[in-house]
């Protein structure tokens, strides 16, 4: 079975092992140690870690398309945000009549903007199952339509990157509009509960953290399964020599579309888990800047390794947390410097460093070098 294949790989076993040990340590330290103890992991930290894990899942999704398909998506934030909005809409409907105006149906922002009834696209979001399907379907459909058009007409390389950027930028502007009915600039916030659990309790937060960890593990395994399958090799073939793959009889556009849609859905799941943990979803998640930042996490961690994406996302965001607290002015210098240094001196990222140290000892098929691909992009 293709889905179980990754479990036989050492790299996946290692990844899942480290992830679960780390999660167990966090949970144990959170529950078992008293507050104030040096070892205690506060619920603040748990939520923070949960957020990092969401970002890690998002980075894995981006790495799947960038690392293995050579599609540098500068619009993955859009899929993340759509997943987030789907979850946010569910959470908004869950507020029910506990909102400021006590309207049992309409969210607060609709009441004070004088909306008379719920727009059609909000229907169904009061049901968890529907919302959760939409978490996958909304980004999936967007990716399907966008990808179908783009890949069919063989928009590649830089052009593709730029139009993915245009996509997320257009969506950002659209979601900013209050007429859209998604809360405009304020977005959706003031969530109360999820599946009946009060979001403002530590237990729920811990639960969300665990759920995110599990989602990351599943997402990682799915990506790994695709990468390790023949389809994964075809992806690399499409990345490195698109024309050759086509003349071998592969429908390159369909391969790209499939992987792109899977990636978009994973990003959507990441967004959906992110929203209840940070407590707000607003159009700024669509900002092209955020999407570029995701790519940098992947680049830092190491492209086309998947686990590198996880490392990169967690590291950068941890640094962000520390810097914005300790020396806020220096944060952008540090982030900017990181971008430059990594691309110039560390083209294979941290995973590349790890791999080169390990080389000789263990030949792991974990890394699939995309460097040859980049030389091709240059000539395209």
């Amino acid at each position, binding site marked *: 079975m293709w889905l179980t294949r990754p479990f036989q790989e050492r790299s996946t076993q290692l990844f899942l092992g480290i992830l679960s040990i780390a999660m167990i340590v966090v949970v144990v330290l959170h529950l078992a140690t008293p507050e104030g103890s040096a070892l205690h992991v506060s619920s603040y930290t748990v939520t923070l870690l949960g957020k990092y894990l969401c970002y890690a899942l998002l980075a894995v999704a981006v790495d799947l398309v960038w690392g293995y398909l050579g599609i540098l998506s500068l619009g993955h934030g859009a899929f993340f945000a759509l997943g987030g909005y789907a979850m946010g809409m569910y959470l908004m409907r869950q507020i029910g009549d506990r909102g400021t105006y006590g309207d049992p149906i309409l969210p607060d922002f609709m009441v004070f903007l004088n909306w008379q009834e719920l727009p059609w696209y909000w229907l169904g979001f009061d049901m968890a199952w529907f919302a959760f399907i939409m978490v*996958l379907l909304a980004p999936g459909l967007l990716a399907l339509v966008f990808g179908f058009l783009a890949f069919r007409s063989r928009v590649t390389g830089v052009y593709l990157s730029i139009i993915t950027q245009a996509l997320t930028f257009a969506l950002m502007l659209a979601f900013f509009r209050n007429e859209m009915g998604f809360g405009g600039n304020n977005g959706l916030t003031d969530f109360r509960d999820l599946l009946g659990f009060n979001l403002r309790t530590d237990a729920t937060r811990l639960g969300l953290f665990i759920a995110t960890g599990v989602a990351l593990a599943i997402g990682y395994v799915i990506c790994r399964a695709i990468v390790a399958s023949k389809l994964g*090799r075809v992806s690399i073939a499409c990345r490195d020599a698109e024309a050759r*793959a086509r003349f071998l009889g592969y*429908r390159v556009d369909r391969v790209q579309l499939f992987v792109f849609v899977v990636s978009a859905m994973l990003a959507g799941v990441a967004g959906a888990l992110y929203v209840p943990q940070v407590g707000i979803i607003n159009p700024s998640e669509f900002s092209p800047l955020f999407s570029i930042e995701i790519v940098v996490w992947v680049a830092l961690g190491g492209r086309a390794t998947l686990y590198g994406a996880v490392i990169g996302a967690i590291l950068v965001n941890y640094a962000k947390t520390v810097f914005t607290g300790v020396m806020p002015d220096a944060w952008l210098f540090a982030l900017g410097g990181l971008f430059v240094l990594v691309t110039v001196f560390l083209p294979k990222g941290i995973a590349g460093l790890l791999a080169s140290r390990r080389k000789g000892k263990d030949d792991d098929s974990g890394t699939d070098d995309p460097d040859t691909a980049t030389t091709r992009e240059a000539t395209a």
Partner: protein
Amino acid sequence: MSIIQELSNRDRVFEFLTPVASPVDVRHGPILYLEDVNVSFDGFRAINNLNLTIDDGELRCIIGPNGAGKTTMMDIITGKTAPDTGSVWFGSRHNLLTMNEPEIASLGIGRKFQKPTVFEALTVFENLELAMATDKRVIPTLRAVMKAEYRDRIDEVLETIGLENLRDQLAGILSHGQKQWLEIGMLLMQKPRLLLVDEPVAGMTEQEMERTAELLTSLAGKQSVVVVEHDMGFVRSIARKVTVLHQGSVLAEGSMDQVSNDPEVIKVYLGEEA
């Protein structure tokens, strides 16, 4: 899991887009038939009223000076370039102009590029694996399992192209000649009815050339082979029938001796060598 299933279902919605793998009909004549084909880029006529017929099992060499339209012709046959006018038929049943590259490839037309193009980030074995004639739709590819018979077939081709020792090496580290061989090997894996081979011996040593010639001639008969080549010695060593292209149309056609004695040909092409 559900994601994947859902997607696989969606994949089926587009059934009409999947390649049609029906046999080529050569009962009524040639395997490849080009008639009155014209292509121009920015006013430049790359192909000019080209007519060409390749018989089943034939080994045909195509020569011509730079810019004669050899590569463009291959682009047209394989669906990369759409001609302005004309018709291109594969057997008597398949109009190639209505198909895209993967469909044409699945019909059994294999193509080797001028510049050797292999998947450098994959191993030699994997390169051949991808080329293998199997169901190449997305979901079957995702579920594909390496069977013993496939492995045997790959090993067989590895032996044919003499790369069995490099089986698990990345294709990127191969020499130029080895890449050419690997690419030919990939064509063999495809089991094509028609092979289009663009400059197969560029950058090869004398010995490698000989082996290539051997291989190509051995293929003819079972498959039709069209070779575009600059190297006259090589062409002479394999050619039975030669077509000379000039300014996008056929200048002469016949045996190597015939064409090399054709005054027109001497004037435009061989004249430079003589």
